[in-house]
């Protein structure tokens, strides 16, 4: 007897987020990247539509990183010393679809750049590269509340993804994103209740739910990956069952989490493998956007996504 697949039909759908505005939409990006829009669990192509593949963004900084592992330094070479050369290498040599720029230089401990300097950097970067941008703060809430509005304004109309808003600090960023036509990253500490609450708080300020991307916070392989996995899976099941307050795509900071583990630094190439496995696992749990660091790992994941989506 032929086995019959039991297929689930879901009433809910994940919102579609298009990062980057091209000249039709009043921006200057060349290839906007669409994520989300699925009404099925990850990779279950028979259950529903999965119109967009997971996307990979390369992480760059606005200053030369001080503490990056030798493996990463080797991959980028001298370009690491010049953020624009670094961005250029990602786009032209490694074919990045998206760049995720961390404004680390604004952190009080790593240069304390002013909002004006940060805004100038973003303006310059937008001129130098034409891929869509993700802009992330320095991690210092007080400082980020000054520089992110400046960056948002500098990129007005380019439909960037800007973050990260957290439960105790979201109002300033929401106001900027709303005014300048961007999308926001809502970050919660591996906690589905807070993820849901933050989405509601943000939408209460007038930024609609379909302009939010959730950063569920992840751990790398060996560091709580399975917790992130189960939170993402649970949020996705709720969203597909009709909970609009959780129906946002996920962004996962894979590179950042991988390269802080001791295993990534323990032996040559091991970090690359660690980053690949972490990213590949998160694709299974529903990641829509992976922010990665090592170009070899990013390439492998790119090819992996290609294989998964081969019809």
């Amino acid at each position: 007897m032929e086995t019959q697949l039991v297929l689930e039909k879901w009433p809910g759908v994940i919102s579609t987020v298009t990062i980057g505005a091209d000249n039709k939409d009043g921006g200057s990006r060349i290839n906007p990247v669409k994520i989300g829009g699925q009404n099925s669990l990850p990779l279950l192509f028979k259950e529903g539509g999965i119109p967009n593949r997971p996307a990979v963004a390369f992480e760059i900084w606005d200053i030369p990183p001080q503490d990056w592992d030798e493996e990463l330094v080797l991959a980028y070479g001298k370009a690491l010393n010049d953020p624009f050369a670094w961005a250029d290498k990602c786009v032209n040599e490694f074919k990045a679809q998206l760049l995720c720029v961390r404004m680390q230089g604004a952190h009080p401990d790593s240069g304390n750049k002013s909002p004006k300097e940060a805004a100038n950097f973003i303006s310059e970067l937008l001129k130098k590269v034409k891929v869509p941008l993700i802009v992330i703060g320095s991690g210092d809430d007080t400082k980020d509340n000054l520089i992110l509005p400046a960056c948002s304004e500098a990129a007005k109309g380019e439909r960037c993804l800007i973050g990260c808003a957290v439960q105790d600090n979201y109002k300033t960023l929401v106001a900027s994103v709303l005014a300048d036509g961007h999308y926001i990253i809502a970050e919660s500490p591996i906690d589905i209740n807070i993820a849901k609450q933050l989405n509601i708080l943000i939408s209460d300020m007038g930024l609609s739910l379909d302009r939010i991307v959730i950063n569920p916070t992840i751990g790398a392989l060996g560091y709580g990956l399975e917790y992130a996995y189960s939170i993402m899976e649970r949020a996705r099941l709720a969203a597909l069952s009709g909970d609009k307050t959780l129906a946002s795509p996920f962004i996962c900071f894979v590179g950042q989490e991988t390269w802080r583990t001791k295993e990534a630094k323990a032996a040559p190439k091991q970090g690359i493998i660690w980053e690949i496995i972490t990213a590949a696992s998160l694709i299974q749990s529903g990641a829509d956007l992976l922010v990665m660091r090592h170009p070899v790992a990013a390439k492998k994941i790119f090819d992996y996504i290609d294989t998964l989506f081969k019809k």
Partner: protein
Amino acid sequence: MFIIGELINGMYSNIGAAIKERNKKEIQNCALAQLACGADALDINCGPASRQPLVDMPWLVEAVQEVTDKPLCLDSSKPVVIEEGLKASRNKTIINSTTADKEKLEALIPLAVKYKSKLIGIAISAKGIPQNKDQRLELAVAIVDNCLKESFPMEDLYLDPIVLPVNVAQAQMKDILESIAEFKIISDPGPKTTLGLSNISQGTHMRSLINRTFLTMAVAYGLDSAILDPKDKELIDTLITAELILNKNIYCDSYLEAYRKK
């Protein structure tokens, strides 16, 4: 929970008058107010005083579907009145309701099939109101059997255990609640369950409190839907909380608001 708003009913004086005077606005305001409070569908009943239900029912349907595309629950004891409502409906429909009587089943199941309507089946028959759980189950099985014979999809059938006022039939309350759970396992896939909530508190002095306490208990027994007053905010808050406790929705501090954003 699939909430069916009960307020468009000719037995309420404002609606009765609006039907008589052909005051569409009054009906539409009532529809929109219920939807704003979380109703997923609207019950439509001309009321016992309607002299010409065959005309009033389609008029009500037209009035309501001018302002919403939510499902309409066509409520009448007369199949001909329901059919007039079905003919007039562009929105999805729910037939409210068939009993377990042969002539009702033979009239209404084919109508539900023909108009692709959902159907509410009440565990009652011409012999009278069931006196215990077994009698309810027997009537429910008769309804399910007839639906299966007509290939009516089980997921579109809502069984109602028939709620009686607590001050009239206190001894039956536990049976009514247990019937909800048992109805759902009559077949596989099983039918859904619904009930007309307000009847529980008919003639009592604490209507709202009795309504929401009973609804909470019914939800715990697996109730899928209820015909109720969605403008009773405490009732809806209680319902959302009961479903939260049953892990049907993910908790967050603003869970009441989150539910209403759905």
